[in-house]
């Protein structure tokens, strides 16, 4: 309970920081919205020239793309600070302040930034899903809806866990940004149905970097009823729990290797 209260206090602080520079905030919001719009347009133009991909229609592919933005946007809202840790903050010895406070370091990093840009992605994702849903002819079941929601929420947990684990390596390597970037880039594979990939990548995307597990499989469940929604939900929650526990463990182990910098 204490941590919930503390989290909101810190988030309020983060928002005050963001609003401190008025013009910067407006430019950031505008540019973020615009860049998302551009990438959506790019996808639209590409998909338009290929009327179907591995048997999926334009609307279905749009649905995939929109849905993939949900877990990514949730992760973006809550864990953006880990990018800075991976790229810069450990190398610059800028983590000292967190080690001096009577709160877990990992909690402080989460609470350091709340990234409202995530809402932009979320709104675009929901809009895209809604538009595409009107062009779909599927029988919507309760199970399919449930697995989509679980996929989005626990998918975000999985993305965040990967991010935390990769950022933690910065305590050993001083800078782990590029590594985090590589892992994160795999999420763009999951914007398309798994069926279009060769076996190796498909396996990788389900069992190793499970972006496919929480994006493609739930969408397939809605579109074709290919998987049992409850079993899939169970699997996603289980994987998320394991990933998160591992990530926190890796972080706390690596954290002790922090060397700061000379002063």
């Amino acid at each position, binding site marked *: 309970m204490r941590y919930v209260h503390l989290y909101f206090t810190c988030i309020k602080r983060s928002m*005050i920081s963001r609003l401190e520079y008025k013009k910067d905030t407006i430019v950031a919001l505008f540019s973020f919205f615009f860049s998302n719009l551009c990438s959506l347009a790019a996808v639209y133009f590409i998909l338009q020239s290929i009327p179907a991909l591995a048997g999926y229609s334009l609307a279905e592919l749009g649905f995939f793309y929109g849905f993939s933005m949900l877990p990514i946007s949730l992760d973006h809202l809550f864990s953006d600070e880990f990018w800075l840790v991976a790229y810069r903050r450990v190398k610059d010895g800028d983590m000292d302040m967190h080690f*001096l406070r*009577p709160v877990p370091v990992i909690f402080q990093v989460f609470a350091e930034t709340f990234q409202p840009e995530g809402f932009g992605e979320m709104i675009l994702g929901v809009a895209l899903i809604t538009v595409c849903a009107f062009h779909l002819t599927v029988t919507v079941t309760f199970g399919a809806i449930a697995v989509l929601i679980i996929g989005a929420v626990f998918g975000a947990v999985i993305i965040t866990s990967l991010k935390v684990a990769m950022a933690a390596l910065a305590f050993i390597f001083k800078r782990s940004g590029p590594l985090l970037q590589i892992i994160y880039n795999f999420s763009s594979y999951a914007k398309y149905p798994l069926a279009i990939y060769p076996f190796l990548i498909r396996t990788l995307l389900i069992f190793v970097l499970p972006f496919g597990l929480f994006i493609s499989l739930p969408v397939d469940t809605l579109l074709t009823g290919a998987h049992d929604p409850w079993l899939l939900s169970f699997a996603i929650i289980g994987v998320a729990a394991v990933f998160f526990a591992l990530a926190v463990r890796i972080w706390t182990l690596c954290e002790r290797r922090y060397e700061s910098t000379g002063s």
Partner: protein
Amino acid sequence: MIEVNELSKVFRKPIRGNGLSGMVKTLFSRQYEEVRAVDGISFTVPDGEIVGYIGANGAGKSTTIKMMCGILTPSSGSVRIDGIEPYRKRRQVAQHIGVVFGQKTQLWWDIPLIESFKVLKEIYQVSDADYKERMDFLGEVLDVKRFLSQPVRTLSLGERMRADLAASMLHNPRILFLDEPTIGMDVLVKEKIRLAIHALNKSYGTTVILTTHDMTDIEDLCSRIILLEKGAILYDGPLSKLKNRFGNLKTLTLTVPAEIRAETAPLLSPEVALSEEDGRLILRFDADNVPLEQVIQYAFRDLRAMDMKLAEISIGDVVKTILAQQEATDGQAVAQ
């Protein structure tokens, strides 16, 4: 109470070549060198003491402080803060210590100072009554009220340091670690910071560990100093004893008529060293061996002094002498 026992920190660094080609070679080399930043030091600081932790740049002061407050994990040995090792139970110790690094602020850069304080209040779980009491105390001794509503980014260096000090004292820590709190400050701010440290120590019995290069800080604040060189302790004890390490050294500076020169002036005794600087004569002697009275008589009678200034050896001079001696013996050791 702080107990430091056989504490060491070794950094392992790859041996680097110079320039781009050297750096590329470094990538494929497996050679490492070990830098012993802190090398087996031990000391104990009882509650309520103000200790000056001094030494040249790179002597290992900051590294020790960072181990004492839980940022760094020692390579060997231990630190106990009230019986707890900070790098093992970091959170528990953090609740009771305050830390200021003169070179790095721990405040949030772009928000008004008061907002930073509000967050720290939550982090350290300071009650409303305590918070108010602390703010009144700190507002008075550090004069932070004036710029509470300004973002930290817009504060001057002196204001920022006072803000950082206030932030570190907000939760009434039992121990305060100050790593160069007066670096780059003007004399007035330095004075204010010293008074605040004094007031805190008097009112709350806070233990203070202070590193500084400003010997006035040491003389004003510290009853005890620990002198560190190349990761090892050279001296640990009261300030007065360090000063008398080379005897009761005094310097007498004389303004004399132009015809009195150092080379030709009569000598009082071989124990009074005579030198000349900017047309003035300087007498250096140990007042325990040569009575001061005698030297002053000699200055008036034989050197026809028109004006004189008597000075004790400064703590800075003592430290300089000790470090120079140490360097000389190290040099000999290497030569052998």
